[in-house]
């Protein structure tokens, strides 16, 4: 066997869900790209907050409310520090989708107009595509796409050419593709955008859970990610933004908590980051997310990346044994995140997912919220196996075994 076992993290026991059995079988979870399982420390931190420290934030003078305030502020500090962000410009949202909608609304509407262009890529998740499409329709701007080549990668030359046209106000792209796995050269792309006077927005949903990310070093004007893919709770996302731009922007959602003062006819906005956090925020979720990044920090993100790379290399190698199986995206594990999207000749991806479930293996099938990309790849759908910190080589073996068994059922 390749040197996979040595470099995997061996932390499955930290995740209570793997104690469950499904029809007597262990859970083989290969859908972390959709959402990650939660370690005990995250579940406990959230429960502990709800059990002993629950109060609303930013209002109460009593001791319990001060505890809640302190927990929420501390959570923001820890979450920001995890990716090299500044707490003042680290905004909690519901998820990345909301973060990007915030940007399309608060930045896009004020800065993109007729004759302008928004540049995104063919590999975007609908979350980083639909808000821009809506914005461009509304504002009479043009939405253009960087193409994905046959290796599943973008071209910096095309980026240069697009930026040279002089009309691009905003460039938005994924750090890691949720379908292809491609790791995009973020720092090179944001530098080019900056030189061309365009604002850059990076969707880090698939990147933050599996590799070291330093938002300051990446140089994006805005960087969004989500808690639940990073072994944290659902219902909380994170947006890091340039202070100068955030200060200039109008709020997205309005209401309580985000105001400095209100009278019957006028209002002034609260300071950053609260200006962008209307209403009661996800307090327990923030506490859970702080525990999640603490857990990942303890593992060490360099080690997490090595684990993901090694398991992905193993997965690509083992999947190649299955006749008729074709993986999309970059062929080398170094150039991709911890996932493989694939098709199996003679079996529709939905049936692939259903068949491997018979072996207790959870994978995803469908268009992965990237229908335009599917059309580029010439497929209606793919099956996708994605790994997390808890996966082991044996999980990949179970997938391959289940795929072989599925081919037998289909008499291939």
């Amino acid at each position, binding site marked *: 066997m390749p040197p996979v076992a040595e470099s995997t993290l061996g932390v499955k026991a930290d995740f209570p869900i793997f104690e469950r059995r499904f029809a007597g079988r262990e859970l083989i979870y290969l859908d972390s790209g959709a959402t990650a399982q939660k370690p005990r420390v995250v579940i406990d931190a959230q429960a502990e907050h709800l059990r002993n420290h629950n109060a609303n934030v930013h209002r109460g003078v009593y001791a319990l409310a001060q505890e809640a305030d302190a927990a929420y502020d501390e959570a923001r500090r820890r979450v920001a520090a995890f990716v090299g962000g500044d707490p003042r410009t680290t905004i909690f949202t519901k998820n990345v989708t909301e973060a990007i909608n915030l940007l399309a609304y608060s930045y896009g509407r004020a800065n993109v107009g007729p004759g302008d262009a928004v540049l995104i890529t063919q590999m975007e998740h609908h979350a980083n595509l639909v808000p821009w499409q809506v914005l461009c329709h509304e504002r009479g701007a043009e939405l253009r796409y960087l193409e994905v080549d046959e290796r599943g990668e973008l071209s910096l030359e095309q980026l240069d050419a697009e930026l040279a046209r002089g009309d691009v106000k905003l460039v938005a792209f994924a750090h890691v593709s949720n379908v292809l796995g491609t790791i995009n050269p973020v720092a090179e792309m944001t530098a080019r955008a900056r030189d061309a006077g365009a604002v850059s927005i990076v969707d880090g949903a698939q990147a933050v859970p599996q590799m070291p990310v330093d938002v300051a070093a990446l140089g994006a004007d805005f960087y969004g990610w989500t808690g639940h893919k990073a072994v944290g709770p659902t219902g909380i996302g994170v947006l890091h933004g340039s202070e100068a731009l955030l200060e200039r922007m109008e709020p997205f959602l309005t209401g309580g908590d985000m105001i400095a003062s209100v009278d019957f006819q006028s209002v002034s906005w609260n300071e950053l980051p609260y200006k962008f956090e209307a209403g009661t925020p996800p307090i327990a979720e923030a506490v859970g997310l702080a525990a999640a990044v603490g857990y990942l920090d303890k593992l060490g993100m360099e080690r997490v990346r090595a684990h993901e790379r090694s398991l992905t290399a193993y997965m690509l190698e083992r999947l190649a044994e299955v006749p008729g199986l074709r993986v999309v995206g970059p062929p080398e594990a170094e150039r991709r995140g911890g996932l493989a999207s694939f098709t199996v000749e*003679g*079996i*529709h*991806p*939905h*049936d692939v997912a*259903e*068949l491997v479930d*018979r072996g207790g293996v959870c994978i995803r*099938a*469908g*268009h992965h919220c990237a*229908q335009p990309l*599917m059309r580029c790849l010439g497929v*209606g*759908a793919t099956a996708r196996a994605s790994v997390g910190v808890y996966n082991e080589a044996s999980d990949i073996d179970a997938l391959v075994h289940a795929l072989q068994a599925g081919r037998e*059922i*289909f*008499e291939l």
Partner: protein
Amino acid sequence: MDDLYRDYILDHYKRPHNFGEFDPHDLEALEHNPLCGDELGVHIRVKDGRIEDLRFHGHGCAISQASASIASEELKGMELSEVGELNADWMIELLGIPVSATRRKCALLNLKAVRGAVTGDNAWPS
């Protein structure tokens, strides 16, 4: 023997009946399964208020393709008024396999398209 992927289901999937398109046709519809992006279109020829002949096309999983193939044989000769009355139970029973909640739309996509073409109502069959 697999509960879901029975021999006849796989037969219909691999060698679907009435697969293709034809022109001219009197009625048509194209439907998508939002879950997976699959698409399924139907072309229908009508004579004397009945489905004289039909073809389906597109791409989909074994469940959706087998449903369309099996239903196509039943639909030929059926009165249009009768087609409007067909419901989800008719399709699931005809399919003859246990369909889970997540695969239900796969099984019903074809009926949605056929009913849409005939009645103009393209709601999911209930």
